[in-house]
């Protein structure tokens, strides 16, 4: 039996398989089931500051609508003891998960303001999160905002949050930075402890009957792993921080690939959604079988062995699809 242990964000993990944010990491019961299936850590769905504020505003607007207008109906709803706005319910899940699980509990945060990022990061730390993942989920549509502006602001954010809390912090990045390697190295030089590659943005769809734009969520496909594979291979050796592969990790062989290019952990959501919370156990069996078949004794031995500079054909990680296609044809 090979040694599966690994280290991520300074946390010692029994295996490199981590459950990334999704329905299965929303409740303590399902996180416990994931732990039973062998995942080494769980990352909770993001606490969205913007969502919290929008939610509070919607509640307030509803409660105020029509109030003090008409003498017979000065309001329209009974006064409730608790409206459960704000982060309390999320924090309670973190707290309960921390109390119940033996594996690290990683909280995820998407802030809307610098103050919000820091305030909620501290609240999550206080609730018992072992680490924090910053979900840098933003679509930059303002043409006045340059790539440098975006990068500077993200770097400043990582510095501020990681300095404000004592627990390790990872940044989950989008693949759309124009000079990704440069930005990732810059990020790794901040006090953050790891990079998670990559964030998948929900892409809008159109309803052809109504012409409405409808948000559409698709589960990831295995081919999507190729993007993090490339960039982890490129970064491993250039950055000292932890690297996590996410998007398209569906089975044990995908985990093996992620580790080979240099990831410390591989994160999975869609496969768990598709196959159920017991699926990580089969992923682990596949990983172990592959490692045994290929005579790897440990994850640390395996990790990074096909990073770019260690690859037989390093340039393969740099080529574009066009050239690759031509060469395949040839």
């Amino acid at each position, binding site marked *: 039996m090979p040694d599966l242990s690994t280290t991520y964000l300074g946390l010692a993990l029994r295996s490199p398989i981590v459950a990334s944010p999704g329905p299965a990491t929303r409740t303590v019961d399902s996180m416990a089931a994931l732990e039973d299936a062998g995942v080494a850590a769980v990352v909770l769905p993001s606490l969205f500051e913007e969502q919290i504020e929008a939610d509070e505003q919607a509640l307030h607007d509803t409660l105020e609508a*029509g109030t003090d207008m008409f003498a017979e109906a000065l309001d329209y709803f009974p006064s409730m003891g*608790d409206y459960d706005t704000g982060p309390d319910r999320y924090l309670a899940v973190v707290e309960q998960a921390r109390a119940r699980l033996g594996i690290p509990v990683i909280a995820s945060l998407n802030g809307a303001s610098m103050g919000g990022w820091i305030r909620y990061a501290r609240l999550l730390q206080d609730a018992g999160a072992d680490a924090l993942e910053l979900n840098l989920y933003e679509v930059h549509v303002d043409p006045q905002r340059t790539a440098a502006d975006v990068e500077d602001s993200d770097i400043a954010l990582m510095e501020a949050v990681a300095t404000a809390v004592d627990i390790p912090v990872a940044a989950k990045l989008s693949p759309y930075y124009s000079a990704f390697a440069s930005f990732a190295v810059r990020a790794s030089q901040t006090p953050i402890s790891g990079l998670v590659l990559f964030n998948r943005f929900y892409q809008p769809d159109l309803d052809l009957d109504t012409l409405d734009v409808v948000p559409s969520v698709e589960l990831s496909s295995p081919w999507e792993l190729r993007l993090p594979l490339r960039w982890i291979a490129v970064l491993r050796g250039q950055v000292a921080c932890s690297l996590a592969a996410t998007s398209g990790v569906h089975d044990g062989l995908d985990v093996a690939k992620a580790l080979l290019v240099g990831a410390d952990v591989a994160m999975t959501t869609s496969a768990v959604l598709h196959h159920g919370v017991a699926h990580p156990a089969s992923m682990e069996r596949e990983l172990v079988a592959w490692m045994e078949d290929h005579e790897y004794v440990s994850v640390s031995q395996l990790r990074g062995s096909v990073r770019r500079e260690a690859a037989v054909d390093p340039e393969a990680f740099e080529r574009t699809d066009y050239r690759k296609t031509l060469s395949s044809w040839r």
Partner: protein
Amino acid sequence: MTRQICVDGNEAAALVAHRLSEVVAIYPITPASPMGELADAWSSAGRTNLWGSVPEVVEMQSEAGAAGALHGATQKGALATTFTASQGLLLMIPNMYKIAGELSPVVVHVAARSLATHALSIFGDHSDVMAARQTGWAMLCASSVQEAHDFALVAHAATLRSRVPFLHFFDGFRTSHEIDKISVLDDDDLTALIREDDVLAHRFRGLSPDRPVLRGTAQNPDVFFQAREAANLFHDAVPATVQEVMDELGARTGRHHRLVEYVGAPDAERVVVLMGSGVGAATEAVEALAGAGEKVGAIVVRLYRPFPTDAFLDALPDSVRSIAVLDRTKEPGAPAEPLCQDVTTTLARAASSGRVGSMPLVIGGRYGLSSKEFTPAMVKAVFDELSSTSPRSAFTVGIRDDVTGLSLDVDSSFTVPTRAVQAVFWGLGADGTVGANKASIKIIGEHTDQWAQGYFVYDSRKSGAVTTSHLRFGPEPIRSTYLIERADFVACHQWSFLTQPVDVLGTARQGATFLLNSPYRADEVWSHLPVEIQGQILDQDLDLWVIDAARVAREAGMANRINTVMQPCFFVLSGVLPRDEAVTAIKASIERNYGKRGRAIVEQNNAAVDAALEALERVEVPALAVGDTHRRPPVPPEAPDFVQRVTARMLAGEGDLLPVSALPVDGTFPTGTARWERRMIAAELPVWDPDICIDCGKCTISCPHTAIQMKVYEPSTVDGAPEGFLHKDFRSRDLPGHALTIQVAPDDCTGCGVCVDVCPAKSKEQANHKALNMAPADEIRADERPRYEFFRSIPYLDRDALPHDTIKGSQVLEPLFEFSGACAGCGETPYLHLLTQLFGDRMVVANATGCSSIYGGNLPTTPWSVNGDGRGPAWANSLFEDNAEFGLGLRLGNEVHRSEAERLVAELSERIGRDLADAILGAVQSGDGDVREQRARVAQLRERLDGATDRSGRRLFLLADELVRTSTWIVGGDGWAYDIGSGGLDHVLASGRDVNVLVLDTEVYSNTGGQASKSTARGAIAKFAAAGKDAPKKDLGATARHYGNVFVGQVAIGASEQQTIKTLLEADAWPGPSLVIAYSTCIAHGIDMSTSISHMKDAVRSGYWPLYRFHPGLEDAGHHPFQLDSRKPQIPLRAFTGTEARYGMLHRSDPERAEMLGALAQADVDERWRYYEQLAEVERSVPHAPGEVPEPAHDDTEQPDA
């Protein structure tokens, strides 16, 4: 130390009642509903009574039901209470006799309110409690909020000691809704006065099989009378018992009360006698006059039944020569009103027995009906009358009676001195003004040594309503139980009010401060003010301040809520609190009020407070008025005479000044008056783009205010149209070569946005540009006015031009229900305007009390309208509980007249002409065209009978219109149909008569603020169901369907307009009873009301609201009466309920219970659908005699939901 809080009278009473009860039976009725709501909320939150149990709060189906439950609970030995008012109290009277006859200790707390007579009124007077004075209950009257708190305890203690049930009452609105600073009775106070032995004795008397007794026997002439007298000693003992309790209360609290109290000069010669909130004004007047040396006084009656004759005589100074007894009720035909009769009898007996030396002069007057203002000046007028050489034995005060001359002249310049700061605020409903003022009262009352009082006046409209807040603060307790007459501070929170026909500055005293929310800066505002306002500012020497509160609020992220912007300005300008202290207190108040809703809300309000004072500017008032902006007249000059003389005065806030002669003697008013209001409340108006419009008519059929309408006409009609009048070719195979215009009524639209939301037509080039798009009203209103006037002048299409059973076909018909004051986006009103389009010129409407009777019939105006022939819906409201029966009565009247007319036609057929007579008698009037043909025949008949002098001829001439088929519609909400009127509705449906019932089902008592009804679905929260409703919704249609001969339809206009139209047409055509249950979105659902109509789609798609028609058939076999018109549920229930706050809030407050109820609610939906699918397979016919009823046509084609 005694805790002091600021609460209103309802809360003051409920705070005691809830702690002293085990069973609370409730039912909503204004103005008592808040007491029940608080009791329910407290019990839901686990708050316990004095004995550590959570009181059981149960909502009943009516006040009669509540009284029955109360009776039962007290017979079981439980401590029971209820809260009610007005008609609700009337419904309790039968049980009140029983409860008193059985000497059962129980308390009913009443927020006293007018009884409906010539009109309903929600406001305060004593006509309800006076109607219960003969039941044998003790009646204790509180005249202030503190007394409502104290006397609640006195009533609960005294009923247990005396065994006589107590009716504790205080004035509706003036006390029930006035916020005052009071000292709170703590549990020790309650424990001290509620003797445990009395409680145990009551429990022991309760029915138990362990000590069986028989109660409620039937008695015979031999003993009934004696038994009735057997309880005399208990009633006789009540006054002493009440005084005993009052004394104990006084000893604990220092607040000493007497059964009858006297205030005024010790040597008074003239005295007024009264009870209730008027005592405050009377006391002020007496003290001012007595202080000036006048020998006057006031007798305040606290215990009214049993009438405390000894206490009354003891309180009356020997020096009194004349007495005026003031009754806040009217008893037509009586020698005097009740209190006056009691006083007269008491004095007469005392004089005859020698207890008083001579009988003083006693006169009686009515005042304050329906919360009519009662001021110190009116009290002085009463004293003046007593001083006159021949005082009138009966009078009224507070109105001008130019018919019977009973009213006293009032010198309005008489005011009493006050040390209080008096402030009046003008706000728009839901802009936060009232909420902020309530918060200000608490800040001052609970955090300073000052006394504080707040009273709020609301509009009768539910959209764009004006509110005024009257706040007093001062170093002495405030007893002024009337609106502020001389304000030190006036705030106008909405700029638009300045040009409206209301006198915003009418109450400002000389030199007062005027705070104005202005879009203009201090240096530019003057010229924008209407010249009337400028004149008042100059004449009154007002200190003018402005702030652009809308901007400050917007920048703080608060949309249109300007409350926390205006509030700090008030504090600083009024000087009630130092600036920093005020800001700190306001922020603490924001935390208290909004903290539970979230940090973002607190922070944005705090930001608004900080920004407000920076934006406040003083205006250097010029010496002269400038500009040509004027306050607009209440109605345009072309409005009819009655509207000019009467309606306009009410719209201008001058209804109090109308003399008696201006008002109809029997409550009959003209219809079609809402169109003259032109309220201009929309911030945005829809703009039509004819190039994109597809003529679907969804906008007009969905419009809750009938403010966007559609006309189809010959193209030449637009010759001479004003510039910018838009039209397009009308797409119709049935009617080629016509033009179409969709036109908004720019002054009547509320800007709710429903029309834009439902519009399906989008530009091919730009998807967010529809055939209707909202635009700022200020930019287009003036241009749209002449276009709308031109549009109104275009004749409606001939009613035969298009079939009525399509959206388009129905929408080209003239609506006879337009511009209601319902909530913006109301889900009920589209059904009503559609109804009038289909049947309006031959409709009689019986309307149950509720939202529809308020937006339909609350003065000043009504949306029910008339067509060019002067025909339109005839509308009447009887009560809440009897609407079905009332409607049946209307129908029966119609039927007897029609029968008589038919008999006379037959009798006079030779004279009329046999062909015409046969045609009239043989007419089948199932459709609109048939009806119009009959109307033409009747016109002919009339011509032939014109000038007839014989009895039959004259009678037929007058009755001839009855030969035209009338459509009787019985309209009401679910509170009526499912609950209080359920029995009557069932009976009327069983009658087989040709009546049509339309239930506007909002699934709550919308008009009283959203209390649960039996229509409320499982899992929804509502008032009286704060923990989420346990039981599933009642299937109202099931009861009706079981009869077999009742047409039943369930509709949702936003899900299928077509199915709604067909259902209404079939309901009307069915010659027996019809029931149409219409899903009506409501502000109480917690949805975005701009999508209120389209929101119905998901109600249908989820199976929450299946569409169906149950069409009784006369075939012998093979008829499937039940037809499902919507598809099998396509989305889970959660996808629908998740979008509504009424469901979502339970997920927040109690997620586990919400999940549990949600699963059951889904099961309800699944099971109902399974049942309905089976029903659709069932064959059933109506057994009938041959030729008994004609089979009307109906459409069997399925109507899938939209």
